């Protein structure tokens, strides 16, 4: 019989070291051994401290979790990219960077698209590539203007498929009112690139006098979702054909800049906007809670989910709150403006099913709570692992 795992001992040593450092640096801790609920609270406090620590990459290799949009992605971004590139423009980690160029406020964003399969009910990788980047600009308060499009094509990929994808991009760009003004093409050998990968970057001008950001959320703010969640993720899962499931469902991919323009014109009470992609609505709620240091409380009953997404999620044991959308936004709105914001969204075709799903609270900071349909309460944490790989 061999002795346990060495990685466990290392992990434990590291944690003990950090705990000791913190205890030395912080106020003198109570030496009394607590019991019952007090002891539980002590443990919860310790966990809270552990969660706030600077993230560290433990893995030696990239795993699929790093691409899921959940905890592992965030750890990777903070520990590797932010750490290396560190600058004040990057740190907010919003959907787009806010730049000042010769007196204009410009938003800049980029996204890569690796969805499999390339074609699915409701759209294709081309639609995602345009709408996704348009949306990242729009939720930053910018009017999207220009896109770049870089293609990595696999040797053997059908030109007819490429043409089809590009046609989708053309239509999507026209609908969104943007132009693809520059691009690049690379070809890699058969077996790499799974057909086609696309990267798009986009710029837009921030014209409204608003400064949007999840860090602005305040207790009392309303949280609004623009429509039913999880449709894109479930569509992709079913389209992969591995699960032998048929359902009448299509991706919700859509450009949200029209809806957002209407919303921002109707009210000045919008504090933050995010589009719910990888990691779903739950990821955004967690970003609000941790960036602003507030609590978020949502009601399961109020979250719009279609019967099909519900059925597929129950069947597969996944939670729709973590399933990707590609045409839905989450808005944090000042409470006195919530009705006006909701009305503005519902007046737009992409927001007819918009709903208030919850509110920002002062306590408990950094935590997202869900009041279940059943009346109980549970936490909604960041996603761990990767239930639905290669969704977008």
């Amino acid at each position: 019989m061999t002795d346990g795992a060495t990685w466990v001992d290392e992990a434990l040593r590291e944690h003990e070291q950090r705990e000791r450092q913190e205890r030395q640096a912080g106020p003198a801790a109570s030496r009394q051994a607590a019991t019952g609920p007090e002891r539980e609270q002590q443990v919860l406090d310790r966990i809270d401290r552990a969660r706030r620590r600077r993230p560290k990459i433990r893995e030696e290799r990239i795993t699929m979790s790093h691409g899921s949009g959940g905890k592992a992605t965030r750890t990777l971004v903070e520990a590797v990219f932010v750490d290396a590139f560190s600058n004040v423009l990057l740190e907010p980690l919003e959907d787009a960077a806010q730049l000042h160029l010769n007196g204009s406020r410009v938003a800049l964003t980029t996204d890569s698209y690796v969805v499999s399969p390339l074609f699915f009910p409701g759209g294709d990788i081309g639609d995602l590539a345009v709408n996704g980047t348009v949306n990242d600009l729009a939720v930053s308060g910018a009017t999207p203007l220009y896109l770049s499009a870089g293609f990595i094509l696999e040797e053997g990929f059908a030109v007819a498929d490429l043409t089809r994808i590009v046609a989708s991009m053309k239509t999507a760009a026209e609908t969104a009112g943007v132009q693809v003004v520059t691009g690049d093409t690379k070809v890699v050998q058969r077996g790499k690139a799974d057909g086609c990968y696309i990267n798009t970057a986009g710029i837009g001008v921030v014209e409204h006098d608003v400064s949007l950001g999840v860090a602005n959320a305040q207790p009392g703010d309303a949280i609004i979702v623009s429509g039913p969640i999880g449709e894109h993720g479930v569509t992709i899962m079913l389209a992969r054909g591995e699960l032998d499931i048929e359902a009448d469902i299509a991706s919700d991919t859509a450009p949200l800049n029209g809806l957002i323009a209407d919303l921002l014109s109707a009210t000045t009470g919008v504090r933050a906007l995010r589009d719910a992609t990888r990691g779903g609505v739950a990821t955004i709620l967690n970003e609000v809670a941790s960036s602003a240091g507030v609590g978020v409380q949502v009601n399961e009953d109020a979250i719009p989910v279609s019967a099909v997404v519900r059925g597929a999620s129950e069947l597969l044991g996944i939670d729709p709150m973590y399933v990707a959308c590609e045409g839905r936004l989450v808005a944090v709105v000042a409470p006195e403006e919530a009705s006006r914001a909701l009305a503005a969204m519902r007046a737009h075709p992409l927001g007819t099913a918009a709903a208030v799903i919850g509110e920002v609270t002062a306590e408990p900071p950094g935590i997202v709570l869900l009041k279940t349909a059943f009346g109980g309460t549970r936490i909604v944490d960041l996603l761990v692992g990767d239930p639905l790989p290669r969704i977008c």
Partner: protein
Amino acid sequence: MRFVDEFRDADKAHALAAKIAELCEPGRQYKLMEVCGGHTHTIYKHGLEDYLPESITLVHGPGCPVCVIPMGRVDDAISLASEPGTIMTSFGDMMRVPGSKGSFFDAKAAGTDIRMVYSPLDSLKIARQNPDQRVVFMAIGFETTTPSTAMTVLRAAAEGLQNFSVFCNHVTIIPAIKAILDSPDLRLDGFIGPGHVSTVIGCRPYEFIARDYGKPVVVAGFEPLDILQSIYMLMVQLSEGRSEVENQYTRVVPWDGNLAALRAINQVMELRPYFEWRGLGFISHSAMRMRAEYAAFDAELLFEVPGVRVADPKACQCGEVLKGVLKPWECKVFGTACTPETPIGTCMVSPEGACAAYYNFGRLHRRRVVEVSIQ
């Protein structure tokens, strides 16, 4: 959703909770164990404990088949998967269970062909589509899942598939319950009995709990109202001084179980003389292996399996959590060195593990919970 939504009705929950509270004898504490990991998951997912009076504590049992897989078996599986020309297939819950050098997920990142499947039949499909590769199915689960593996092997045999085998880690629930009952650390008042295991084995196998140990058992469904109703039924028995086996999940569980399923299991598999359970040690006649007639589908015979026992890390207290002796937050490494992202033990990795359920869903001070729920 039919047969689901009706059993998630909050008003009925309040009614049941009131009735349960009425049945509590003043000054008495009640400890009820839910054996099944699926029940643990439901309890936390719906915030069910918020409905129970302070005098009733739910103790989480060992009915999580992922949680009881020893590190050594994970290593064995990864070793199988690493043989050239092999495709390993596994349920999603297994993917992040840690072995001594990492999980399936880590092995996959390093290049091993490990694929997630929803059903053992998906594994068969992969075998048909890849005739030049050897496809192995990592079979885990209690009696709920064992018949499905058995039926899959029967199908493979009927089709004459040459490249499909099963690495069998199926375990049985009764020896686990007996280990709990015989454990000196635990004084339980009653059991919320496994729901889906019972569709296969029926309710009779639990009779020894009521008869020999004097504890009531109620076989429960998986919706929150099912569990609340089962707790109510247990409390009625306790208040009347009875100890019997009752079935709350009558819409799904037949008293005699599923004979066709039991026949399939019996045809393909047999009980191992003993098997190691993580945290519970060796238990005799508690796990299945392939019968000699189906040796062609037994991965342990077809491949060289290291079979090295790996001791649980000393800091890991999964064993005590599994037995319900420790609450998740009472484990010294809970939430710090051991989190869902960086799990040390199985209780934190499996979506049905008590630690994962508590960390992901329940990690709140009770006072705050009461505040939120009352609104």
